[in-house]
């Protein structure tokens, strides 16, 4: 078993669309809970991860300039992450296909956790 990080990326507009009416919010939530539960029941869930605020600060360059960001209008903001276990990257990708973020125009980035002692 290897570990993978799912990085959830979404735009603010897509997120608001997915949660736009109470009924849609309910459906989005239920789909997420079901998906997470499925990962967990099959033993793939290593760490549920943390949700991230969509805004913050960016510190950049040798000048260490601080700017606001990432901006809410920006595409593909990282909205959170989860750590899962899978046989290989193919299985990790396969599992991610059922992620509800995909229905709302977001994406899941599947990144293998680097093995320190391969």
């Amino acid at each position, binding site marked *: 078993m290897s570990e993978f990080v799912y990085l959830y990326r979404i735009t603010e507009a897509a*997120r608001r669309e997915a949660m736009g009416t109470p009924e849609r919010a309910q459906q989005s939530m239920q789909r997420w809970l079901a998906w997470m539960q499925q990962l967990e029941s099959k033993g793939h869930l290593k760490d549920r*991860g943390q949700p991230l605020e969509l805004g913050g600060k960016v510190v950049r360059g040798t000048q260490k300039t601080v700017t606001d960001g990432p901006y809410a209008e920006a595409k593909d903001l990282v909205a959170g992450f989860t750590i899962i276990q899978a046989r290989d990257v193919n299985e990790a990708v396969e599992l991610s296909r059922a992620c509800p973020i995909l229905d709302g125009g977001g994406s899941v980035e599947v990144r293998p956790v680097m093995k320190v002692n391969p």
Partner: protein
Amino acid sequence: MDLNEHLFRHESSRMVAALTRIFGVHNLALAEDVVQDAFCRALEVWKVRGVPENPSAWLMLTAKNRAIDIVRRERTARTFAPELSRALDAEWAIAPVVDAAFAAHTIRDEQLRMMFSCCHPQLKEDVQVALILNILCGFGAHEISSAFLAGRAAIEKRIARGKKVLASAKRLFDLADAEFIARLSVVRRALYLLFNEGYHGASAESAVRVELCREAIRLTVLLLDYPPAATPETHALAALMCLHAARIPARIDASGDLSPLLDQDRSRWDAQLVTQGLDHLDRSASGREMTAYHIEAAIAATHAAARRVDETDWAAIVALYDRLMGIASSPIVALNRAIAIGERDNAERGLDALGAIADRDRLDRYPFYPAAMGELELRRGNRDAARAHFSAALALARNATERRFLTKRLDTCNLS
């Protein structure tokens, strides 16, 4: 922890009530934004952390904190609720004032005020109902349009028109207003229409329609919770809703087909709703006035009292329909009266009564008028006439369930 099926819809209504209490109804859109924000946060957090022990409290707290932020940041640039403008002037008072707006009894009162405001006499009844569904039941335009067989754009327009009137009023209806009793009757009428849309409406999605009935009952119970609104007439309305809703489980038979009142398996009626309905009917009897709601509830109670269809007291039912015609005549009432006469006397008398309905042309597109003719013709052995009526009814069917039902009736004419 599982999510309550209606958590987001019902919490949306409660949060909007508390937030408009703080922001003022002219900032309804801001209140709705805050609610949506709370939902977005809930999704992000709950999906990884799981649903909290008390999800409603979690949502409320999120909305409350956001409200405090907004008031703190924008109180110089924006005017909030006129009732609270003074209190919100002092920095130290913001948190307690916001807290108070989220107290359970305040939310209840604000929901009532919102309901009364949605029933502004300047708004047409269809707008009132759409507003109630949107703001107090948390349905989006899409869900409302599927329940009403209307286009989404038309419903959106209806809601926008209503919200404009709401916002221009500056403040919500005051429950201590001298107009209270007059407005209460408009509110009851809107809830009655909401219930009927669910019970008799044309939408094929029975799940959507059951939801409308449930919401109408929920809001009527909310009215009854407030003593000045708990008049005999409101109890009569609750009675008629409960007694009709009790039949919902039996309206679709085991094979998924429509089952008319006379054929229903009465053991599938919801006994609890029947009891609640009869209880409301008792309480409705204290006044002097006999309203249309009283009579409709009494008719439903007479049906509920018959354990088998042949125990039905049709004479009593016809007498009640006669009274109903006296105060609230309509072609639909006349149609039901004619059916009852057919049961009390015989098919001929029923057909006579059907033929004598005054503004019968208003039933031109209603499939159950020709269907009633078909039933009675069939009963007196006039198969050809029955077939013609059922064919006419089938051509008017509004959804697949009605089509299936009428096709079956048509087949019966061809049997034996």
